C-alpha cells in the first residue's frame, strides 16, 4: 500500500468514526442513564431498529427528517417505558426481557418497514467543517451531522447533570442502593421506569440517525448489533457519559475500517474487517471485566442484574 493510500485510509477512518459513532453515542448515553438507575436494558437493539424504521417512515410521509427524529424518540421512549413497566413485576428478569424486546422491536420494525424499503426520505443536514481544505477526502470526512454535535453536547450535559443536579443524584442513589433510596422516600420503581424511558428515547434517536443520515436508508440489516455493542460500550466507559463519547468514536473508527479499506481497493477479507467492531467490543469486554469485585464506577444495584 502506498503512502497516499495509507493517508486516505486514515482520513477515511477519522471521517468514518465521526459518521459511524453517532448511533453508538446515543444508545450508550441512553443505556448509561438506565444502568445508572440500576437496571440493564438489552432491548435497545430492538429500539434502535424500530427507531430507524419509524424515523424513515415518518420522514417519507411528512417530508421532514426532524419529524422522523421526533417520532423515533417518542417510539423509543415507549419501548423504554414498556421495559421499565414490565420489570416492576416481581420475578421478571430484566436481561431476558431485553432479549424479548429486541425480537419484538425488530419484528415490529420489519413488519411495518416493508413498505418503506423502496421510497427515499429527506436526510438530516450536515455541517461542512472541512471547507478550509482543498482535499476532497478531508472535506468529505469533516461533513459533521447535527445529531453528532447534539450527542457531543448531551454527553457533557449528562456528565454534569449526574454530578450536580438533584435528578442526577436521585438516579444514582436509586442505582447504587434501592434500600437507601427508599429510606429517603424515593419511589425506586418510578425512577427506574423514567430512567429506562429516557434511555429508550435516546436509543430511538440513534436509530433515526441510521436511517436518515448514515447509511441513510431503511433495510432490515441496518443495525446488525450496534445497539448491543453500545450496551457493552457502557461497561467500557465505566458508566461515565464523557467516556461514552470517546468510546463511541473508537467504535465508530473500528466500524469504518472495513469500508475505508474497501475504498482504496483492499477487498480481501471484507467480512473480517466487517467483524472488527464485534471483535473490538469483545476484547474491550474481556479487558474491562473483573472476576472478583465490582468495577469502579459500577452502580451497586446492577450487580444483581448480571
Amino acid at each position, binding site marked *: 500500500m502506498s503512502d497516499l493510500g495509507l493517508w486516505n485510509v486514515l482520513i477515511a477512518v477519522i471521517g468514518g468514526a465521526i459518521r459511524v459513532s453517532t448511533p453508538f453515542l446515543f444508545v450508550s448515553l441512553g443505556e448509561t442513564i438506565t444502568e445508572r438507575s440500576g437496571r440493564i436494558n438489552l432491548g435497545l437493539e430492538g429500539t434502535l431498529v424500530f427507531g430507524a424504521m419509524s424515523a424513515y417512515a415518518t420522514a417519507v410521509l411528512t417530508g421532514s427528517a426532524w419529524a422522523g427524529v421526533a417520532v423515533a424518540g417518542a417510539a423509543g421512549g415507549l419501548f423504554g417505558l414498556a421495559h421499565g413497566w414490565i420489570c416492576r413485576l416481581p*420475578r421478571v428478569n430484566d436481561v431476558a426481557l431485553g*432479549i*424479548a424486546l429486541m425480537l419484538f422491536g425488530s*419484528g415490529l420494525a420489519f413488519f411495518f418497514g*416493508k413498505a418503506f424499503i423502496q421510497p427515499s426520505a429527506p436526510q438530516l443536514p450536515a455541517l461542512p467543517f472541512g471547507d478550509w481544505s482543498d482535499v476532497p477526502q478531508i472535506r468529505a470526512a469533516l461533513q459533521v451531522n447535527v445529531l453528532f454535535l447534539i450527542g457531543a453536547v448531551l454527553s457533557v450535559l449528562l456528565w454534569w447533570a449526574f454530578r450536580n443536579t438533584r435528578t442526577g443524584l436521585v438516579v444514582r442513589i436509586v442505582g447504587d442502593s434501592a434500600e437507601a433510596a427508599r429510606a429517603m422516600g424515593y419511589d425506586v420503581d418510578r425512577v427506574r421506569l423514567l430512567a429506562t424511558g429516557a434511555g429508550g428515547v435516546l436509543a430511538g434517536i440513534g436509530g433515526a440517525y441510521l436511517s436518515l443520515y448514515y447509511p441513510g436508508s431503511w433495510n432490515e440489516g441496518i443495525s446488525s448489533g450496534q445497539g448491543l455493542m453500545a450496551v*457493552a460500550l457502557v461497561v467500557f466507559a465505566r458508566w461515565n457519559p464523557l467516556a461514552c463519547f470517546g468510546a463511541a468514536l473508537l467504535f465508530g473508527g473500528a466500524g469504518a475500517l472495513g469500508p475505508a479499506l474497501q475504498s482504496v481497493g483492499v477487498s480481501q*477479507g471484507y467480512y473480517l474487517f*466487517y467483524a472488527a467492531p464485534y471483535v473490538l467490543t469483545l476484547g474491550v469486554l474481556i479487558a474491562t*471485566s473483573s*472476576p472478583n469485585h465490582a468495577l469502579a464506577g459500577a452502580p451497586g444495584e446492577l450487580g444483581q442484574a448480571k
Partner: protein
Amino acid sequence: MVAETAPSNMAVAVPRPSASLPLRAWAARRVEALAIPLGALALGFGLFSLFLLSLGKSPAAFLDLVYRGGFGSAFALQNSLQRAAPLLFAALCVALPARLGLVVIGGEGAIVLGGLAAAAVAAPLSGAPSGLGIAAMALAALLTGALWLGAVGALRAWRGVNETIASLLMSYIAIALANHLIEGLLRDPGSLNKPSTRTIDEAFRVGPMPGLEVHWGLGVGVVACLLAWLLTERTTLGFAARIAGGNVRAAQIQGLAVGRLIAGFTALGGALAALAGFFEVAAVHGNANASLIAGYGYTGILIAFLARQNPLAIPPVAFLLGGIEASSGLIQRRLHLPDATILLLEGLLFLLVLMGETLYGRFKLFSPHLWGEKRAAAAQTVP
C-alpha cells in the same frame, strides 16, 4: 386471582382427606407450570388476532393458515418436524446454561460454525467409508461448538464477562467468519450464484428416519433433550449446577468447581447447537452456505423460555414453533402479510411468557401451601 370459590365455613363441615394431599399438591404444581405458559400463548394469539383485525385481516384465516401450513396434513407435519430438528438443539443451547443462571443467546453462531466445520472436514475425507465420514463431520461440529461457546462460559467464569453480550458478539463474529470462509478458502469454485463449500460425498449424507421423511436430526435431538433432562435432574453434576445457579457463594463454600461447571455447561450447549449445523449440512443442504444462517438460534431462545428451561418440555414447544414458522410462506402468499409477521408474533409471545413468570405462586388453586390457610383461620374463629 384467587380461584377458591367454596365459602370458608363449608371447610369445617367437610374436612379434606389428607392422604390425597401430596398427590394433589404435586399435580397442582405440574398443572401450574403448564397452565401459565399455555395461558400466555393463548393471550398472545388473542392479542395478535386483535392486531390483525386492526389491519383489516381475518384472524380466523390466519389461524387456519397456521394450522394448515404447520400441522394440517402429513406433508405439513413432516415439514414442521424437519424444522423442529435444529430448534431442539438451539433450545438446549439456551436451557443447559440456564441451569446455572446464565443467559446464553449465541446459539446461532455455534450452529453456523458447526455446519461449516462439518462441511470442511468432509472435503478431505472424500471417498472414505460412510460411517467414518459422518462420525468425523459430527465430531468436528461438536468440537467447534464446544470451543466456541465454552470460551464464552470460561470468560464468564474466570473473567466475569457478561455471557449474554459476549455470546451474541461471538455469534456475529462466527457469521462473519463463516461468510469469509464460504466465499474464500472453503468455496467450491463451481458455486457461482450462491457461494457454497464443496458438496459432501453422497455417502456422508444423513438420511431420513425409518417411516418418516424427516432426517435423523429430529431423533437425535429428542434423545439429546431426554439426556439433558437426565443430566440436569438426575445426576450430581446437574444438582451441582442448580445449586451454583441458585447461589454462587453457597456453591463455592460447598467446594463445587463453579468455574468448571459454567464452562462445561456452556460448552455442552455450544456442542449441541453445532450438531444442528451438522444435520443441516449432512441431511438438508449437502454443503455449507448462507442458508445455515436461518435464525434457528433466535427461535431456540424463545423455545427455551417457553419451555421454562425444562429439556423435557422442549420437543413439544419446538414442534409448535417449527409448525408456526413453517406456515410463514403460506401466510405471506394468502394474506399478503410481510415475512416478519411470524417474527412479530414470536416477539409478542416471548414478552407475554416472560410476564407470565410473575404469576407463579399467585393462584391459590396451584399453591398447596396456601390450601389450609382459610380453613385454619375459619376453624379458629368458629367457637
